[in-house]
């Protein structure tokens, strides 16, 4: 079963077409990256798929549930780590995780077990009692991803998860994202070509709301006749691919 089936998804803001008749499928456990320059429609696509904004036309099925007709069911199987670091700054890391456990209705036993699991997976033990707002950008991103994983989502949206991080923090976050592969379907949006190439099973390249190419990183490079993924991306976006 496909985790995501997008059928002619369109979003218009007045006369601006942010996403234009997008159609694609993503398999279960796949890590799919959406690439594109600013304004390509990546974040709008993620917002529609996560029921944050309604499509103007088209639909998408997430594990068979429509984002138009079954928003509550869709919300129960997804989680989003937004572009900005979405943590409660005045709360400790533990309290942030407890907040998300609480809004998902976990009892005390499940909450403690889940917090323990996430601390181990994301290495949060050393900062668990520190205020989230006082952590470095890298740690805040980890906390943000941990909060997204609390609900044991089947589909996880990571919107620019490594934006603004230093090399070490980015590398550590890549390891965490790799550890999720296979267990969770991950939709990743990023501006970093090396990140998409290193992590993705497949990538989709968008421009002006349209999907220009969709293949494995190697497939995209072959399509453009280059061994360099960044060059391949540029050629696709500029419309000079083979």
């Amino acid at each position, binding site marked *: 079963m496909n985790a995501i089936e997008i059928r002619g998804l369109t979003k218009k803001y007045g006369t601006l077409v942010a996403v234009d008749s997008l159609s694609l499928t993503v398999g279960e456990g796949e890590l799919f990256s959406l690439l594109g320059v600013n304004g390509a429609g990546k974040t709008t696509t993620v917002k529609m798929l996560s029921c944050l904004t309604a499509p103007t036309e088209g639909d998408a099925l997430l594990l068979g549930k429509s984002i138009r007709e079954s928003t509550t069911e869709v919300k129960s199987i997804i989680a989003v780590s937004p572009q900005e670091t979405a943590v409660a700054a005045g709360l400790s890391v533990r309290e942030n995780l407890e907040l*998300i456990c609480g809004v998902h209705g976990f009892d005390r036993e499940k909450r403690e077990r889940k917090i323990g699991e996430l601390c181990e997976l994301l290495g949060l033990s050393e900062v668990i009692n520190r205020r989230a707002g006082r952590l470095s950008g890298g740690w805040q991103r980890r906390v943000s991803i941990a909060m997204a994983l609390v609900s044991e989502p089947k589909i996880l949206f990571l919107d620019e998860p490594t934006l603004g991080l230093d090399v070490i923090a980015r590398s550590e976050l890549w390891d965490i994202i790799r550890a999720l592969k296979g267990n969770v379907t991950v939709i990743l949006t990023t501006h970093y070509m090396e990140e998409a190439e290193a992590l993705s099973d497949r990538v989709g390249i968008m421009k002006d709301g349209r999907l220009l190419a969709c293949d494995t990183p190697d497939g995209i490079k072959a399509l453009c006749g280059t061994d360099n993924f960044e060059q391949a991306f540029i050629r696709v976006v500029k419309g000079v691919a083979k």
Partner: protein
Amino acid sequence: MRMLTLAKRNTKEILRDPINLGFGLGFPLVLILLLSAIQASIPVSLFEIERLAPGIAVFGLSFVTLFSATLISKDRGSSLLQRLYTTPLTPADFILGYTLPILPLSLAQGLICYLVAILLGLSPSVNILIALAFIIPISLLYIALGLLCGSVLNDKQVGGICGALLTNLSAWLSGIWFDLELVGGVFEKIANILPFLHAVELERAALAGNFAEITGHLLWVLGYAAATLFLAILLFLRQMKRQ
């Protein structure tokens, strides 16, 4: 349960902000102490504690609006709300979660204000408890203003609109510091139309035991609170949909 989780988090965020505590509790107390000291040094009755304390108790609530609006606008700015919108929390959970934690804070603020007033010479009586009870409908108005501002303004704009404009409106058009009849004219008419004067007079009537005067002022306050809350909910839901 889900709503209470959000409410608990909001309470912690507010109480852990030293600026909130400083302005919310400290500033009204400084005012009541300062004006009482002035009253002790002048021959005319300008800031008698029986009229000053209810005024300051209401004026302190304008900082409640600031707390509430700042919290919501910061949550919008940090995308925390966007994250929470993808959880099973309902619109009612959000509105109650941002409203309920402020009520006990408002009551605590009023209680501290009256306790200090007792130390400064206010006669302890059961009317103080009645006046405290009427803090609840008044705080609903100020909380609704916070929800409204937090839904449409960013945190910098909240600082300007709630921190400067609202506190000044609440201060000058409420008759806390001077009798508005002395100014008269359009100024007095505007003050009578807006809810701030009625909120202060409601507290004063309750404290003085003039219960016949309560109903009229209470209706003004409740009317404004209901209208503001209705508008605030509409605007909150609109920004929620826009996310």
